[in-house]
């Protein structure tokens, strides 16, 4: 019996709709698997595995030591339990911490050398052909004319970066965009200076684990005064079974620079859950601005809650310089369990942090997500707009902190969190923490929880829309504020995602 068979159907919803729901839920587009020969590190985690990952990435000793000290700490700390999520205990020794396609042992020199299966994987995921060619690590492809708008992509497949596009063109502008393993090799001074300064290895259980075992990820450095000539993105794909993905992203926007960064992610359908524990650190110097957008579409598990990705992520931006700005936008539709709080440390005077989020949880999904805005500098501003949608038997929690320190004079925060429930078996929760320690700052928080408005639905229905279309429209209206904050590349995708996740959820 599936979860939906047991859901009591409200009056007015016909069986056809319920059948449609059954068909649609679990209709995860990216659930296929690439059959490719992989090489794995032995299962489990210990100092040998940490050293192995470090040696696979040809890291210097200081990096290996950094990892080992994180691992030593991780062994002593306990998994946090405060989030409103329930999942079976994770056996951290039953996971592969390193998996890479065999064909990636040597970096491909030309298109012909790239494993066609990798190419096909990215083609199927909808990444444009041109980019795909570059993605697979083809050297020289950058000289081919770009089709339409340029987006440089770093593609991460399980534990390794497959390739990074437009590196040459970015280099001309002085921008460094590469995998973090390459950065450790080629720009150790930058990595050494910034790594772990925003999310220290001691930050939390998963960040500590990540610090010990991260295998790859993306590195971005925008030099002073440079506006990054194109959008940068990383696409994370988990493919191998029983494998955890631990990536680390480090973005540095030097004085007066600007970059917009996109992140996407998918994984195959599997009956067993998989762990993804990433760390993203952003450093924003004086007058610099970073936009970080995520469409998180990890496999959410089936309708009975089997399988799916456990997404335990630490993301934090440090607005170090005066007038620096960071904007987080996230659309969360995937993952069985999400534990994620992209945060802003507003250290510089007049710095700004923004957080726009839509989190959609259907079936047995559980999401506990939100943000932290820590105001330290004078005249700092933050804005939080969070929309949570729950359907099926899902639980969706907004958890956030707004903190005004005594020295953060004349600062401002505005928070709005809304939750929408579709069906009477799901839950929506709001857990905001507000700490105000001076009186020249203003903090405002408001939240509402409501169901899809009957009048609005009736109006749409009277105009000839069927119920599902009507709900999709109302919900899109509800989410518009967030969707508008997404970069163009994601806007269409986000609209479609909202519709997909809610299909059949009426009642």
């Amino acid at each position: 019996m599936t979860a939906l068979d047991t859901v009591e159907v409200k009056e007015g919803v016909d069986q056809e709709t319920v059948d449609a729901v059954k068909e649609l839920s679990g209709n995860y587009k990216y659930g296929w698997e690439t059959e490719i020969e992989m090489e794995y590190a032995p299962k489990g985690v210990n100092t040998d595995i940490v050293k192995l990952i470090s040696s696979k990435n040809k890291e210097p000793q200081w990096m290996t030591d950094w990892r080992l000290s994180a691992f030593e700490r991780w062994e002593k700390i306990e998994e946090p339990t405060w989030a409103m999520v329930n999942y079976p205990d994770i056996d951290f020794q039953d996971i592969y911490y390193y998996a890479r396609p065999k064909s990636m042992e040597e970096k491909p020199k030309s298109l012909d050398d790239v494993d066609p299966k990798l190419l096909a994987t990215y083609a199927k995921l909808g990444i444009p052909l041109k980019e795909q060619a570059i993605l697979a690590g083809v050297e020289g492809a950058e000289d081919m004319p770009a089709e339409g708008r340029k987006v440089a992509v770093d593609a991460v497949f399980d534990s390794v970066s497959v390739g990074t596009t437009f590196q040459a063109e970015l280099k001309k502008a002085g921008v460094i965009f590469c995998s973090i393993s390459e950065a450790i090799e080629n720009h150790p001074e930058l990595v050494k200076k910034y790594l772990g300064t925003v999310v220290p290895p001691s930050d939390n259980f998963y960040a500590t684990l990540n610090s010990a075992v991260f295998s790859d990820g993306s590195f971005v450095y925008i030099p002073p005064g440079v506006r990054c000539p194109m959008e940068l993105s990383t696409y994370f794909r988990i493919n191998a079974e029983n494998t955890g993905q631990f990536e680390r992203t480090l973005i540095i926007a030097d004085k007066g620079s600007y970059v917009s960064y996109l992140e996407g992610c998918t994984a195959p359908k599997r009956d067993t859950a998989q762990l993804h524990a990433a760390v993203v650190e952003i450093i924003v110097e004086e007058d610099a601005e970073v936009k970080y957008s995520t469409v998180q579409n990890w496999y959410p598990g089936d309708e009975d809650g089997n399988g799916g990705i456990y997404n335990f992520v630490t993301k934090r931006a440090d607005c170090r310089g005066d007038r620096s700005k960071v904007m987080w936008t996230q659309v969360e539709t995937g993952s069985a369990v999400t534990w994620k709080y992209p945060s802003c440390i507003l250290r510089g005077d007049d710095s700004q942090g923004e957080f726009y989020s839509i989190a959609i949880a259907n079936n047995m999904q559980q999401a506990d997500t939100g943000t932290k805005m820590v105001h330290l500098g004078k005249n700092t501003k933050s804005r939080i707009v969070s929309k949570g949608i729950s359907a099926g038997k899902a639980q969706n929690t907004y958890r956030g902190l707004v903190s005004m320190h005594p020295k953060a004079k004349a600062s401002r925060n505005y928070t709005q969190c809304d939750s929408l429930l579709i069906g009477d078996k799901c839950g929506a929760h709001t857990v905001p923490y507000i700490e105000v320690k001076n009186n020249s700052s203003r903090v405002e928080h408001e939240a509402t929880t409501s169901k899809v408005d009957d009048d609005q639905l009736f109006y749409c229905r009277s105009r000839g829309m069927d119920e599902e279309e009507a709900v999709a429209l109302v919900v899109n209206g509800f989410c518009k504020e967030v969707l508008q904050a997404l970069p163009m590349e994601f806007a269409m995708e986000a609209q479609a995602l909202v519709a997909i996740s809610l299909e059949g959820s009426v009642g």
Partner: protein
Amino acid sequence: MALAQLKIDTTEARLADVEVPQGAAWGNAARADAMARLRQMGLPTKRDEYWKYTDPTSLTAVAAPEAALFHNDEVPLFNAVDRVKIVFVDGVFDADASDDLTAEGVEIERLADAMDTDIHWAKDLYGVLEARGQKPVERPLAALNTALATDGVVIRVTGKASKPVNFVYLHKNTASDAVLHNLVKVEAGAEFTLLETGPAAARFSKQLEVEVAEGGTFHHVRSQGRDHERRAVTHCFARIASNSTFKSFTLTFNGVLTRNECVLEIVGDEATAHVAGVCVGDGTDFHHDDTVFITHDAVNCESRQVFKKVLRNGATGVFQGKILVKEGAQKTDGYQISQSLLLDDDSVFLAKPELEIYADDVACSHGSTSGAIDETALFYLRSRGVSHDDARNLLTLSFLAEALEEIADEGLAEELRDRLEGWLSRHR
């Protein structure tokens, strides 16, 4: 999970020399149960999430910190109200100072007498709501109160009470450590107003368990003393049946430490529950914490939480509020607002306004704001010839108005408003 050593140590130290009161009947079992609950949970420490913003150390310490007595010549609050006055001095019932414990529509007894009666309605209430209220959040200090309460009053309301009952808590001993436990049972269709006034003791632990039956009405208005050095932890647990009304308002003037927990469970349809509070605090030795947890477990009910705080000279105000809407509690209308007015740059407001919702056809909203007095409004009043201090008082009172409006009885509301005005004029 095993308790942390600090918790065990704190708990055992606190319990080492206490004498659990012994009675002749069911009370002993109720107290033993509470003690078992307490030992299982352990007393709170400042590492507990639920005590994140308030340090419980002085509330769990073996001895109560001393508190100087506070004298003033003002007429006691509600002096002119026709009421049944029940006086406790440092937590001990004072028969001579109290009125005759009779009024139409109510039956009043001392807790010890009820506990010594084999068959008594109080048995189904004493510690019962407290035990229910331990989930999902533990409230060990309430269990401690149930185990150790030495005095209190039990009130059964059978009809429309002819006049309110006023618990008057006097503080006369600088080292007093009072533990009181009161019960109120409002029978179906009955109506009752409970007033509470005074600081009570140097350290005061007080619990009130209220059962409101179908169609019953319970009004509660209290004021926790005036500029006293006292520390207090109070708990109010209520179970609210269908078509009934529960309204509670608390006014706090200063006091070193106050933690007021209000735990309401709405179990019948079409019921209403309102909790409101105003606190005004001056100085770094003022810490006030309102912790509210309202559970909706019935259809078509309304709840409101309205809390306003005025803080100055380094005072700290805390609000932890929660609305829990259980599965099936459709048509719930939940409202929660917590606001603070910080009159200077040193005061602190800490809030955690939570929602937890498992039903889709509900409307729950919460708001929380914090900021300084509106300079534009102040300027406007000044331009109209109002003095700076008067203008500020006026704006402060208007900020507090929404909470004061939660008091149904206008006479009582007016009296509290006057006291507030006086306090604000003195604390400039």
